[in-house]
């Protein structure tokens, strides 16, 4: 048997049998997987902030507790904005895979607007808390609250800068493979922020304003 026949046989085998080792993974998989690891480490960082918040929940130093401060209607609107933006981000991913620039830019613009709406509401809430004398220096509970929710807000701000960068890159450079990989990572990041927000509105706002 000649070597070419051998390699050919091996190649067809590899092509057919899924799960066989078939050379190094594509760049898209390596990049996406690496970014997935980063996101998981980011979630570990948030879990430390959540643990801090949960431990300090009752340490209000005689000041206002979550029940006196939180406006759940505001939180529900923020949640709606972020959830809708996660959906439109998914639409942008589909448009990017289909290489449809028009729908990609539209979906990303809507995602950006919804993210901006979320941030405006969050900043308004922070400003009103500080104005009512419930700033981060008032009690350990409020320090933990501002650290946790503020950290999520910073992530959303960074995500929006990234989002605008991706819109500009697709506009000037088109759907090159490297830009497609960045869009994949951005979508992972944005969806992960929404997952962290689920924990925020449950642990901080709903559980924090109970009892």
């Amino acid at each position, binding site marked *: 048997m000649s070597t070419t026949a051998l390699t050919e046989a091996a190649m067809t085998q590899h092509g057919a049998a899924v799960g066989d080792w078939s050379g190094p993974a594509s760049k898209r998989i390596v990049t996406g997987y690496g970014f997935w690891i980063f996101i998981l480490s980011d979630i570990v960082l948030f*879990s430390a902030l959540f643990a801090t918040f949960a431990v300090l929940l009752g340490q209000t130093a005689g000041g206002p507790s979550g029940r006196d401060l939180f406006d759940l209607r505001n939180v529900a609107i923020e949640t709606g904005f972020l959830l809708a933006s996660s959906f439109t981000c998914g639409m942008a991913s*589909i448009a990017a895979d289909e290489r449809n620039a028009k729908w990609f830019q539209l979906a990303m613009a809507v995602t950006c607007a919804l993210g901006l709406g979320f941030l405006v509401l969050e900043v308004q809430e922070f400003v009103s808390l500080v104005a009512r004398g419930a700033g981060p220096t008032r009690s350990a509970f409020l320090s933990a609250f501002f650290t946790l929710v503020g950290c999520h807000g910073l992530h959303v701000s960074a995500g929006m800068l990234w989002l605008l960068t991706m819109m500009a890159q697709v506009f000037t450079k088109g759907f090159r493979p490297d830009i497609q990989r960045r869009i994949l990572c951005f979508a992972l990041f944005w969806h992960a922020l929404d997952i962290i927000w689920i924990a925020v509105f449950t642990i901080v706002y709903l559980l924090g304003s109970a009892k």
Partner: protein
Amino acid sequence: MSNAHHEADIAPGDEQLDHGSVAERIAGYLTGLGLAILLTATSFFVAGTNLVWEPSIPVALVVLAIAQMGVHLVFFLHITTGPDNTNNVLALAFGVLIVILLMGGSLWIMDNLNHNMMPMDQLMQMQR
């Protein structure tokens, strides 16, 4: 995406495209959105209502949150149990393990200290 579905693995966030037109993919995201809205609405309803037995509310909220995270992982991040996703799921499992250790451990230790230590004001009194 086009270079992904002949490999043994797929990147996290990528869908298998063997059986997915644009309409089907949009339907997937819509399903996820619908389920997420349902779970979020239930969470806010349970937190604000008097109809549910009160001690059960925190447990219900945590269960609803975990369910919604699952919905997001499956429908938005496309993390599945398929063989092409093994690496992604294993990384996720390790992340979840660390999160559980970190949160559970912190709460356990601090709760134990709260039970066994004198309240801080009494401690200060003794030091005078």
